[in-house]
């Protein structure tokens, strides 16, 4: 059993990403979308929290949402995978269920 967690809020605006990381079981996947993509950037006050969570969770980020916001892939925390919309679909198929953190 595995869960795909999506987070669509900026970690600097809401605590959705903190809650997701705290409550996601080991082996789960986290996909950062919309304003959630800011959580994937390195060198921020949230980067250490995400890097630490990557020991137990696989992190993905939605490419079109990065491009819209002018966030270059070179600014991402190493190990976070960029996916497109069809990659998003694949993740929903590969996991048993989804949990959308708002």
């Amino acid at each position, binding site marked *: 059993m595995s869960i795909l967690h999506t987070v669509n809020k*900026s970690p*600097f605006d809401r605590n959705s990403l903190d809650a997701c990381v705290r409550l996601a079981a080991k082996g789960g996947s986290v996909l950062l979308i919309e304003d959630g993509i800011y959580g994937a950037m390195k060198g921020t*006050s949230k980067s250490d929290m995400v890097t630490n969570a990557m020991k137990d969770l696989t992190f993905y980020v939605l490419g*079109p949402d990065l*491009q819209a916001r002018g966030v270059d892939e070179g600014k991402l925390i190493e190990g976070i995978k960029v996916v497109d919309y069809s990659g998003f679909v694949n993740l929903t198929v590969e996991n048993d269920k989804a949990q959308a953190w708002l």
Partner: protein
Amino acid sequence: MSETKKFMYINRKAPYGTIYAWESLEVVLIGAAFEQDVSVAFVDDGIYQLCKDQDTTGLGIKNFSATYRALGDYDVNKLYIEKESLDARGLTLDDLMPLKYEDENDDWAEKDSIHVVSSQELAELFEQSDVLFNF
């Protein structure tokens, strides 16, 4: 009879995820059209509005970031960025669009609209304003 007031618009939201950033731009331009003394502050996630190289083709929604470059033409040339917000997000001025204006009182010399200020300096600017709008 005309009275000019000091307007301060405070932006604290990232673009695209919510409508705040776009709505703020519209209201800022309206204030400028009425020839008020306009300042715009970018705080917290609001600084993401000014990130360069925004490309919304994948989302199928309007990329309004080019509109910030037009602000100088409407005499909106006092843009304040809080340094603490930049630092918390691992960003520097190089990550933002270089926004300029031409100073009519200085032979149309091209000058920077963006000023990086500390929280304390920004608090002082708020104190000096007549009207504060939050987005």
